[in-house]
């Protein structure tokens, strides 16, 4: 399988590879694939190699900086990095890097990570497709004619094609979980307040979350362990309950764990192939000894409306200066939504926040007798680039609504939600399975997600992975990857 954080931790510790070798192979993979996938906005070649050398020297001296010592990590281009410009997916307004790292970037570096690049995204994180007018569209590695999802599409695509070991994304309405689902990787939106957003360009302060996007659930647990915890620079972060041992939770026996399957909303308007993949995952959990029962979550009709109201108002507030001073710098879709946010009265915004309060109580009551609920991560597999409307049977709806109605409710109520791969459609597109837990119970969510993935046909997934990367690389002008099939990145 492709390289993972956990695998590289072992190989680096054993001396069977070096940070320089890993960085060089990753840069080669980026060269071989990114012309077609367009996952990156910025690649920090020289800085990454220089730091890799330094970290190899530290290791040779018998020391270790932390759990990510010498491991390259990519971050969405809305995380401030003091060595790379942050565009937030917009037209760059400055050629200078920010003065300081985002808190989560600083924590990655303190743990020994090498920030190798900034990944492409939907403009200002305001959309689900990562069709970007300034940096180009990101293409789904499983079918280059399809979207990678968004807004963290570059993070999702880079992890899927192996041009990133792991990445960070942000999630305001599903922007970690949607690209994770469409790209066939793992994406975790932690509980609101678990991970700092300081130094992360805001879309909507009351909905924004930061989370890991990885190849495995174990890697998501490792990254969460590094970035989680209170931050005085983000007053929404909390100190209690304390950060759990997420890595230890992976692989935990889930026999006896109570799994709720919603009978309403989350299983309506779902593509039949996606539904089959999700039902298969539920059967897997049942086979592992989980106690599966139905739950009903009433009063969800206005959830998308409440989310959209909060999003519109807060995004327009965040963009107030740019909207007045240089509106021509926006792409057409984002400009229209930023302008539309000015039309929402304060009374409607507060009504949405009141609905939100009720929804928090509703979910708590519905989940009272279960440990997690499970749903599809997305209603459909990856759609074609350029599509604005989705058809599912007799249902026709705007694309943003197709994704928002499944993923955004958990941004509204702040619950931890994980997307893991759960099979493929007949066309070979990944299907995503969502696991949602009680507040701050990321460990439980991770253990359930890992159980689903571990029960899958690993040899089939690895074979598909190899074909995907080889096909994309063979289209490259300078296919370095073809010459390094035995390297640390693809085995």
């Amino acid at each position, binding site marked *: 399988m492709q390289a993972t954080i956990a695998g590289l931790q072992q190989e680096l510790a054993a001396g069977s590879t070096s940070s320089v070798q890993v960085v060089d192979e990753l840069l080669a993979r980026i060269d071989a694939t990114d012309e077609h996938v367009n996952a990156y906005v910025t690649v920090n070649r020289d800085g990454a190699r220089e730091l890799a050398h330094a970290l190899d020297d530290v290791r040779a001296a018998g020391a270790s900086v932390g759990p990510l010592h010498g491991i390259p990590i990519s971050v969405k281009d809305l995380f401030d990095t003091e060595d790379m410009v942050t565009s937030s997916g917009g037209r760059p307004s400055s050629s200078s890097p920010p003065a300081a790292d985002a808190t989560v970037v600083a924590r990655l570096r303190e743990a020994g990570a090498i920030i190798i690049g900034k990944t492409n995204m939907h403009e200002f994180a305001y959309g689900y497709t990562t069709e970007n007018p300034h940096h180009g569209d990101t293409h789904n590695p499983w079918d280059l004619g399809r979207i990678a999802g968004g807004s963290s599409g570059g993070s999702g695509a880079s992890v899927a094609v192996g041009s990133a070991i792991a990445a960070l994304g942000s999630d305001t309405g599903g922007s970690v979980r949607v690209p994770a689902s469409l790209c066939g990787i793992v994406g975790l939106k932690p509980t609101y307040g678990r991970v700092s957003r300081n130094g992360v360009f805001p879309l909507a302060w009351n909905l924004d979350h930061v989370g890991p996007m990885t190849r495995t659930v174990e890697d998501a647990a490792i990254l969460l362990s590094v970035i989680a915890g209170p931050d005085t620079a983000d007053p929404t972060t909390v100190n209690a309950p304390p950060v759990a041992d997420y890595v230890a939770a992976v692989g935990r026996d889930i026999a006896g764990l109570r799994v709720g399957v919603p009978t309403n909303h989350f299983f309506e308007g779902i593509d039949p192939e996606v539904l089959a993949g999700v039902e298969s995952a539920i059967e897997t959990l049942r086979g592992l000894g989980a106690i599966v029962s139905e739950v009903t979550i009433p009063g969800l009709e*206005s959830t998308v409306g409440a989310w*959209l109201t909060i999003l519109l108002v807060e995004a327009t507030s965040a963009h107030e200066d740019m909207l007045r001073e240089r509106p021509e710098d926006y792409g057409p879709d984002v400009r229209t939504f930023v302008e539309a946010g000015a*039309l929402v009265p304060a009374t409607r915004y507060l009504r949405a926040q009141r609905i939100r309060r009720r929804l928090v109580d509703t979910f708590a009551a519905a989940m009272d007798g279960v440990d997690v609920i499970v749903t599809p991560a997305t209603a459909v597999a990856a759609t074609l680039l350029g599509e604005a409307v989705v058809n599912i049977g007799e249902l026709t709806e705007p694309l943003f609504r197709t994704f928002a109605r499944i993923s955004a409710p958990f941004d509204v109520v702040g619950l931890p939600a994980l997307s893991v791969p759960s099979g493929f459609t007949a066309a070979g597109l990944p299907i995503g399975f969502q696991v949602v837990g009680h507040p701050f119970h990321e460990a439980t969510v991770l253990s359930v997600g890992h159980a689903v993935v571990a029960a899958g046909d690993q040899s089939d997934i690895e074979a598909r992975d190899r074909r995907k990367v080889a096909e994309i690389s063979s289209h490259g002008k300078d296919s370095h990857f073809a010459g390094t099939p035995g390297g640390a990145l693809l085995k």
Partner: protein
Amino acid sequence: MKPDAVQQMAAHAGVPLEDDRAETVSETWLAFIAPDLALVDTDDVGSEPPAMTFTVLPSKNLGV
């Protein structure tokens, strides 16, 4: 929301829109935004207070 109403409300919010922009926002509003916002307006929220999640941390300055 018709384009002239869009222009009026946007101006009130300090975001003046040219005619073509008001037309575009109006079309988007009607097609993509209005149906879901209507469900917010008709939701019976009762006496529920708003959920404002901003947390105030204890002051570091404890005074004299």
